[in-house]
């Protein structure tokens, strides 16, 4: 018997049947055919043999790498302990953002001078000043979200926020949505309470995109508590540098504020930002639970009070572009019409209570409990040695020691905060050093700077002879450098290169790319606000690769900014990592664009080049690529 067209058509199903990956109807059809076709039975047996043989391959001996892995992981914990708390950081910061946002409506803060021209720099400074004034408030927000799930196209929430400077917050989000079947759809009710030494969160377990309502059967409410928190730990920060409108404004270059109609009875300016910049403010609500995602390319409108510079309202609007459509497709979002409002958040009620009861910020001790390991009040001598003489006007609010032996002193003023953390000098961490921008500290020494990101605070590391001092804050970069200049510790400059066998890694001048590597080119165009931040050359197995980061000075939504990789020699593009790739002509050759990663790759004259712009679109990547000289 010979194979016929029917046999051909069933081959893939015969293979999938071995894995139990076909439905009942198809399985019955395959079985009926197999019963009458000897050729297909032999084919099935040959596939089954291969399957067994490959399965046995997995039984080879493997090395025990656990010790090496843990050795690599431990220093990451030690140096970047605070940075790992991003979820909680986001949560607290989220409250701070809401706080700032809500503070606006009906605020009785003394009115500052009326703004004439609302230019970006003026706005930034005034919002920073306003943030310092915030002490106590209680506010309520009304939230409308569209496009969460196809079966629930619209959800409504009310969010209440209480804040007391410097470190006490309470956020309560109540889901008012009418779900198709209230018994099986999980309500997105969220709670967060934070005080200087404890934080508690309560949220529903998140279902996957396609999950509800079926996964809700197993849905639970998760509660987590952190006791012995370090001050502003994981930016649990009051005021968080990454989330409050001041950071949203700080991260926006070329900002224009337009006079608008009054909002909630307040004279207002409207500013328009891309979501990649306004994410800290918008994410303020996403302190847990389940929310719809937004594209970095979406538009955010923020209405700011003309007197106090706090936001009265913000909304996210779906943008129109091919990249945006592809992004929505990947996210499984089908209902986002270009120009439609996806999220609308309006202040509804605001008050400045003269006294907030202490019990309001009393955090329960339930759920998954973890200790932050912080012990207050180290010796006054240790604090004296650590504290900078210039704290940019912030007052000391806390000090102590972490479980890792790091000494911490915290400063705050209203929503503005700064922590100074010190630990004994460690071996240079090549990855951390190479990823940060090397800056001269006024008065001598070197600092390593990283802008604020979606969930991380702005940070300046000073590596001294005997100790490593990390400054984390929502103060601007220039202020951090002034604080660093007033430390007792003077920062050493890291070695230019790190070597490991035949591989090497060397820091190169980011603003002189062709000098760093003769095959590399420098971009003649960068989006507004971007500058060369850091650059390093790696050599391994005969291949030289120059990696250069371009970032904004104060805030970088994705933490990465714009990345340019140039590598030589190269003959072919590496294997693709995803299926959504488009062929694109770049500089006369055929390259490829991954909308998922925001990366454009091509090879010209034996050099591999890749421009990564996770927060921008193809047009921006192409413009940068074609400006390379």
């Amino acid at each position, binding site marked *: 018997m010979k194979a016929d067209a029917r046999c051909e058509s069933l081959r893939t199903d015969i293979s999938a049947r071995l894995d139990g990956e076909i439905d009942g109807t198809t399985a019955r059809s395959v079985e009926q055919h197999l019963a009458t076709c000897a050729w297909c039975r032999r084919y099935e047996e040959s596939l089954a043999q291969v399957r067994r*043989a490959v399965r046995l*391959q*997995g039984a080879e001996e493997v*090395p025990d*790498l656990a010790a090496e892995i843990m050795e*690599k992981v431990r220093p990451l914990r030690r140096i970047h302990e605070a940075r790992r*708390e*991003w979820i909680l950081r986001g949560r607290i910061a989220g409250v701070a953002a809401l706080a700032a946002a809500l503070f606006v409506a009906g605020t009785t803060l003394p009115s500052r001078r009326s703004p004439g021209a609302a230019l970006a720099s003026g706005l930034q400074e005034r919002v920073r000043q306003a943030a310092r004034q915030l002490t106590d408030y209680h506010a309520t927000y009304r939230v409308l979200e569209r496009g969460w799930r196809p079966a629930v196209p619209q959800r409504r929430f009310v969010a209440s926020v209480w804040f007391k400077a410097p470190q006490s917050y309470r956020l309560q989000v109540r889901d008012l949505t009418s779900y198709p079947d209230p018994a099986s759809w999980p309500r997105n009710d969220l709670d967060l309470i934070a005080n200087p030494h404890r934080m508690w969160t309560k949220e529903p377990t998140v279902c996957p995109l396609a999950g509800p309502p079926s996964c809700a059967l197993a849905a639970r409410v998760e509660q987590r508590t952190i006791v012995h928190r370090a001050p502003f730990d994981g930016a649990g920060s009051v005021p968080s540098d990454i989330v409050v409108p001041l950071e949203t404004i700080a991260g926006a270059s070329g900002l224009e504020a337009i006079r608008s109609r009054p909002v909630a009875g307040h004279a207002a300016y409207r500013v328009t930002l891309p979501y990649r910049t306004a994410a800290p403010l918008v994410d303020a609500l996403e302190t847990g639970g389940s929310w719809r995602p937004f594209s970095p390319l979406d538009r955010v409108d923020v209405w700011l009070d003309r007197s106090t510079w706090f936001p009265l309202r913000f909304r996210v609007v779906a943008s129109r572009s091919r990249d945006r459509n592809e992004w929505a497709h990947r996210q499984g979002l089908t209902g986002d019409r270009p120009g439609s409002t996806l999220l609308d958040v309006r202040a509804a009620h605001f008050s400045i209570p003269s006294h907030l009861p202490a019990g309001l910020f009393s955090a329960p001790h339930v759920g998954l409990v973890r200790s932050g390991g912080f012990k207050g009040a180290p010796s006054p001598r240790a604090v004296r040695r650590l504290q900078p003489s210039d704290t940019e006007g912030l007052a000391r609010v806390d000090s102590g020691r972490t479980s890792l032996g790091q000494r911490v002193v915290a400063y705050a003023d209203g929503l503005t905060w700064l922590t100074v953390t010190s630990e004994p000098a460690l071996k240079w961490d090549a990855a951390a050093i190479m990823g940060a921008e090397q800056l001269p500290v006024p008065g001598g020494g070197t600092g390593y700077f990283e802008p604020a990101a979606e969930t991380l605070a702005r940070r300046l590391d000073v590596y001294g002879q005997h100790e490593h001092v990390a400054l984390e804050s929502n103060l601007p970069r220039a202020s951090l450098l002034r604080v660093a200049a007033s430390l007792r510790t003077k920062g050493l400059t890291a070695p230019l290169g790190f070597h490991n066998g035949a591989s090497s890694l060397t820091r190169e001048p980011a603003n002189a790319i062709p000098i760093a590597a003769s095959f590399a080119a420098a971009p003649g165009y960068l989006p507004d606000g971007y500058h060369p931040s850091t650059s390093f050359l790696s050599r391994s197995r005969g291949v030289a690769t120059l990696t250069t980061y371009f970032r904004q000075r104060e805030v970088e939504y994705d933490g990465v900014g714009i990345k340019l990789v140039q590598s030589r020699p190269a003959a072919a593009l590496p*294997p693709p990592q995803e*299926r959504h790739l488009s062929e694109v002509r770049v500089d006369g050759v055929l390259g490829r664009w991954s909308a998922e990663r925001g990366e454009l790759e091509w090879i010209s004259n034996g050099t591999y080049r890749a421009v990564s712009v996770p927060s921008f679109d193809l047009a921006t990547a192409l413009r940068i690529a074609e400006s390379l000289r």
Partner: protein
Amino acid sequence: MEEPEPRIVRAAAAGDLEAFEGLVRRYQGPVWRLCMQLLHNEGMADDVTQEAFTRAWRFLSRYRADAKFSTWLFTIARNCALDELRRNERHRRTSDLLHRARPVVPSDADYSIEVRDAVASLDMAVREPLVLIDMFGMSYQETAAVLAIPVGTVKSRVHRGRALLAVALAATTRGTLNEG
């Protein structure tokens, strides 16, 4: 593949090194084997396994239980391996090497080497789903998540991989028998 208890993953995500070490001990074998299948070099598989767990530690707080832990970890390991390939253009040389004809002696002991080499000679596009499904017992859905391709594509590619292997293994066996 067996999944860890959610509380262990949560503890590791919250910074508990002991919990994380438990995950490392449990999954280092599968991760190393996956890297070995993609890289064909023990030294590189060692390095990439370490890099994969280091990355997992960095990003564990972003793991939100939407996917199985093993699927999430394999996605990271695969990306690390592809980065390594990219850095070294090793895939081209490895592939050249593996495509070279080599004498094969068909004995039970060597059948395993034959299978290994035959798997290694497959194109990455069919090799990856075949390895994830046949070697690690992943479902089509999980494989689709790791590789970011549709389930239908997984189904056709794993079939194609098996069919190519069946032909390759039959050919080497026949060839050697003829020589003998």
